[in-house]
């Protein structure tokens, strides 16, 4: 008995290891995915170690040096300086912190309620629960997320927390919809029916039978969404609804710098490229994951 279970577990483990190996093989076969992974890692590491790797860490906060303002890129300031003499490279590196935090927190907050809503609606497909939940998500999806997020951000006090809250409010329906699609198709599968027949509780079926089958789709979407949320956050900042100065925020830097075009182009172009770089990383990574996990719904 015991040796049997152990053997089965052993085999399962091997199989899982093999799956992982195969997945990695598939993933690494596409060099773009590797590029994405590398970019994401670079950005995350830069964000974490910003105080140590940025050339002028004190420039992240309350600092002015008008004698050095608006210098073009040079060996001293690789990406130049801004209107009050702060090093743009430093601020871009610290800006990653805000972007990443925004991305991770929003997805982290939006995914769970969206997933639960989608699972429940999908499991109770064609009942009033389904109708209620999915119609609510429809309402949220009826307006482009950035617009509603802007409206919400504007009526709330101007700080990062509320900006994140606004985007989160706009984001959960997408997860609800994704998971709903998967859950409602799984709801008729034999293993779910088998679980129903054996008397498993509804939460058990939803979370132990259906959820694990949605994980790869959810995970892929989360990765791709981090990039999109970073864009949305940057857009909010661009309009003036983002982080408060002196906190370095890429979107705000772009919009501030835009006032000095075209002569001081680096003030706007460098942070803009930093946004593109970050989002590109998450997108390439997400695409790689999608191929690897063979997810189609996302």
């Amino acid at each position, binding site marked *: 008995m015991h040796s049997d279970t152990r053997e089965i577990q052993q085999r399962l483990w091997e199989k899982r290891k093999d799956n992982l190996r195969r997945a990695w093989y598939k993933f690494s076969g596409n060099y773009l995915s590797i590029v994405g992974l590398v970019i994401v890692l670079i950005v995350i590491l830069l964000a974490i170690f910003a105080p140590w790797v940025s050339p002028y860490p004190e420039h992240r906060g309350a600092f002015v040096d008008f004698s050095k303002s608006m210098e073009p890129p040079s060996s001293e300031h690789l990406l130049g300086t801004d*209107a009050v003499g702060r090093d743009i490279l430093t601020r871009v590196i610290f800006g990653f912190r805000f972007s990443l935090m925004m991305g991770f927190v929003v997805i982290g907050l939006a995914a769970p309620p969206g997933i639960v809503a989608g699972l429940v609606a999908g499991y109770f497909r064609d009942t009033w629960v389904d109708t209620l939940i999915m119609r609510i998500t429809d309402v949220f999806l009826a307006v482009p997320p950035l617009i509603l997020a802007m409206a919400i951000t504007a009526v709330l006090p101007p700080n990062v927390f509320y900006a994140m809250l606004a985007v989160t409010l706009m984001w959960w329906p997408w997860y609800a919809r994704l998971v709903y699609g998967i859950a409602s198709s799984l709801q008729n599968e034999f293993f779910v029916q088998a679980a129903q027949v054996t008397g498993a509780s509804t939460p058990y079926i939803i979370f132990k039978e259906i959820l694990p089958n949605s994980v790869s789709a959810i995970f892929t979407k989360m990765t791709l969404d981090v990039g999109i949320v970073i864009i949305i956050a940057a857009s909010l900042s661009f309009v003036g609804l983002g982080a408060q100065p002196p906190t370095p925020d890429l979107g705000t830097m772009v919009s501030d710098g*835009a006032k000095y075009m075209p002569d001081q182009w680096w003030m706007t172009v460098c942070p803009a490229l930093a946004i593109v770089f970050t989002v590109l990383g998450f997108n390439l990574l997400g695409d790689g994951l999608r191929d690897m996990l063979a997810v189609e719904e996302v």
Partner: protein
Amino acid sequence: MFKKNWFLLLLVTVMLTGFVFGCGPGEYEDDVAPAPDEDPVDVSVDGPVYLRKTFSWPTQIDPAIGSDFSSSTALTNLYDTLVYPNPDGSFVPHLAASWDISDDDLSYTFYLTEGVLFHDGSELTAEDVVFSYERLQAVGEGFAYIFKGRISAVEALDDYTVEFRMEEPFGPFLSTLTRLYIVNKDLVMDNLGDGPHGDYGDYGTGFLNDNDAGSGAYMVKEFDVATQLTMEKFDEYFSYLDPMAPDIFEMIGTTEAATVRTGMMRREVDISDQWQTLEAFRSLEEIEGIDVARWPDGGQLYLMMNTQIPPLDCVHARRAMSYAFNYDSLVQDIYPGTEQAMGPVSSVLPGWNPNVYQYSYDLEKAEEEMALSQYAGQWDQYPIEYAWTAEVADLEKIALMTQAESQKVGLPVEIVSTPWMTMIDQAGSIETTPHIMSIWVSPHYGEAGSILEAKYHSSNAGTWEQTEWLLNDQVDQLIEEAMRTVDREERFGIYMQIQEEIVELAPTIFAYDNMERHAYQSYYINWPQAQDPIPVMGYNLAARFIQVDPVKRAELLGN
């Protein structure tokens, strides 16, 4: 394969080529006068002469509503007032040919210039003056507050005589008349909408929102909300109208740097707004034929401290802030060419006190004051919230500088970029007013009393012009006394006393005397007010004095 699609591709290519050729990038020759896009800029000297200036919107052209810079500019061009200000702060007769003042200073009788025509051809009479005043008070916005509670009655004695009766003597009354724009009563009455004013309905606010009913040198041709106000010359204007004054005066509702810059380069914008960054003005000045006009506008940048909340309810804390502010860097790095303000009144404003104490950048003194404060040693518990207008890039520099300097002496400042409308909202109550708000305030009429009353009299607390919430009885009494004093010298004496009092209380960091900057096409524009500015907001852009030479403009464009 794909035969159809190839055809489409061909079509697209043709379209794109059309675009590129249509725009003729190749014609670009030099920085000075770049070839414009496909519409060659009108180089002909025939046709109407334009004057185009950029502004920050909203422009409200109802004289009972508008009060900011762009509104004042529009109103000055569309409407007339009883008196007209001079550069030195005195007045000349305008709609009023002359006036008498009763001995008790409680009654002013104005004798109107005869034959003044409104834009619809009807004549301006005393009835219109009475109506304009009553309308301003009933609608209650804009400049209405200036007169509120001071005038008991306005009466037309005959067609050309009108009497203003005061509740009590009102010293700067003649100055304030530069803000009483006379509207065409009959025209307004013909265009009443529904509203809360009984027989007067909406008092014509709906109509006057995008039409004018004035007698000014210009009249509304087209009003495109948030985009553009087009005014055309009124040939039957009763007063001086320069023969070279523009036929069309366009106020363009944008302050966007790139727009202004390309517009100026293409000579499609003749005068820029004042909200450009210093750098932008510098590069504009480098363009051939463009100069930057600078003049003190009688206002200041005030860093207003909420005197009702800790720690700034302590005068020592406020003085510490005043010493910790780097005035030197401000006037050298951020606003070169300006000067540190001396006291609450701008040095160009009649009634300014040249002898008040001037705070300087002195961190040691700041620390001394901090030690005297009841909050000494516990500054960390009282973070100071500093709000600046999100729309203005330069204010962020000042906010960052304040934050960095205060940090040096241990005053924790948190800066918050705040949209203008939010700032107005926040100013509404003591609780919501941040510790510091940096705001430019300009006088509404040309004397120190305008600023002093708006900024420090309790009745104005809670407006965006006074977020200090000074609420000081002694100051209130002094201001009221000054307002009652009709004799100019005597009144100015009280103004000076008030200024000393206020410097002592240090409710505000008096940053610098504001310079209004406008880049303008000096090669083909003669702008007399830029040389000899009038210290009343809006009057320097009375287009009837500005000369535009289309020949010279064509010269610049045609190389």
